């Protein structure tokens, strides 16, 4: 009763440690990004103020916007691949027996718990010039010389999908497991084929989870840095790579900050749009 009543003062001091950490490592850094994005970088010196130079050059230099567009396309491909691979997993998770479900769950959750770098290294061993796939192809006599599988967009997509698949499969499973199986059963009893039941009962009812998963995957994929660097070998450039290069190699914080703000803006717009779609479906 005591807790239920007034918002007790206790509740607020419990937020103190989190408040400290979030201001130091989240709110202040974000504020600095915004401040720097309006600064001006000239001759190695950063001049503060309200300048739009960085935004202007980001939009007009013919490099930043195409890369942002490329990053969005990459994220879109990753999301589509996650949809194609994640939905069957979700369906199967719902159907399996508890023991098998645990094993499958382990397979799906383990990518979140393994380092992205470790997983990229493992893909270098598979897709590389002397990697498993090339050796198998040569051994089978399908190709005579190693095929270039690494250091292109395909490799990056494979690597990123491996990392983000759980973020698609688990929300999809969550909303699928909430569906009453009797709905599907009655559709089947009324003569619908399995595919028809899936397409017109299961899929629409699990759409909220699928949209949530797709949103998260898309947003996370917009921020990828490690995988394109390791598996793209310089042939795939993403917006986070430009930001990192500007700051770490050119010391042009202002320009990097402005591109960061643009990236955040794109993500914000996408999130707002997708959550509106989700709300419409929830109704």
């Amino acid at each position, binding site marked *: *009763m005591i*807790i*239920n009543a007034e918002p*007790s003062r*206790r*509740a607020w001091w*419990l*937020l103190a440690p*989190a408040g400290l*950490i*979030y201001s*130091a*490592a*989240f709110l202040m*850094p*974000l504020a*600095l990004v915004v401040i*720097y994005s309006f600064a001006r970088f000239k001759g190695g010196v950063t001049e503060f103020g309200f300048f739009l130079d960085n935004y202007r050059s980001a939009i007009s230099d013919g490099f930043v916007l195409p890369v942002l567009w490329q990053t969005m396309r990459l994220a879109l491909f990753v999301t589509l691949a996650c949809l194609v*691979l994640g939905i069957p*997993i979700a369906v*199967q998770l719902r*159907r399996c027996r508890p023991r098998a479900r*645990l094993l*499958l769950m*382990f397979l799906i*959750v*383990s990518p*979140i*718990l*393994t*380092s992205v*770098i*470790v997983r990229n*290294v*493992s*893909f270098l*061993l*598979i897709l*590389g010039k*002397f990697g*498993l796939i090339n*050796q198998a192809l040569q051994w089978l006599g399908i190709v005579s010389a190693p095929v270039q599988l690494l250091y292109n967009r395909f490799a990056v997509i494979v690597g990123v999908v491996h990392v983000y*698949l759980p973020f698609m499969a*688990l929300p999809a499973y969550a909303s699928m497991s909430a569906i009453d199986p*009797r709905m*599907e059963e009655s559709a*089947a009893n009324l003569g619908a084929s*399995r595919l028809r039941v899936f397409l017109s009962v299961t899929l629409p009812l699990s759409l909220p*989870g699928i949209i*949530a998963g797709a949103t*998260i995957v898309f947003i996370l994929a*917009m*921020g990828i840095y*490690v995988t394109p660097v390791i598996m793209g070998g310089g042939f795939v450039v993403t917006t*986070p790579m430009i930001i990192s290069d500007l700051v770490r190699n050119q010391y042009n914080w202002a320009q*990097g*900050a402005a591109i*960061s703000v643009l*990236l955040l803006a794109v*993500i914000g717009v996408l999130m707002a749009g997708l959550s509106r779609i989700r709300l419409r479906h929830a109704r």
Partner: protein
Amino acid sequence: MQDDYLVARNPLLLAATCAIGFFLSAPLLILVIESFTAENHLGFPPAAFGLRWYRHIIQPGSWLETAGRSVLVAAIVAPLAVATGTMAALAIERGPARWRSTLYTLLISPMILPHVVLALGFFRLVLMLNADDSYAAICVAHLIISVPYIVITVSASLQSLDRSLEEAALNLGASEWRAFLHVILPALIPGLVAGAVFAFIESFDEFIITFFITTFRLTLPIQIFNSLAYQLDPSVAAVSSAALAMTMLLTVCLLLRGQLVAAGRIVR
């Protein structure tokens, strides 16, 4: 009580799941197999097996220092993250409903935000404080990455906790602190253990912010990343496998304790 419709076999679906499961697990299995090569190069299958490269990586001055640092940082970060995240989750779950969803969104947003943007801002702040390359900066950076996971798991457990137990304790004269210690905390423990494991692994694997703020005091993921710029020699496979073994061991512990579901909840 599962019905026939859901249980009926579907070979196509089963085959698809197996293929996807293979896609998820095969690369890591191959990494581990290749790490036991006794040759000078990586190649599958290795012509000879041995512990040669594992002996190589435990020599002083190669990988031990960074690996030790990564474990140390993760061991500092995990309990701090659990404490911070649990307190925050209690505050938002037991606080006024008006602020609940705003605070919750704010607390979990570091998960979704591109980490490169956070890294840029945090690096700037750390440079201003002359704290780059310091343990404090690394730990704070890792905390901001791992606290959201704890907030999610703990709020979920708090929501499923029967509120009347807590109220009963308070009505019977227990102080708020005592009610927390004897009623809420025991119910939260499984979730906290899972959260601590998650926080440890998140910190152990964190890359981009640490990459920005360190130059000499590297952590393991960064040393692996840097070594990839030269050539992929078997010691990288051995180090990666060792790191993988550690995180997998922790994951299996979660699995055996039946808490993987709690971990799965994180991405919902």
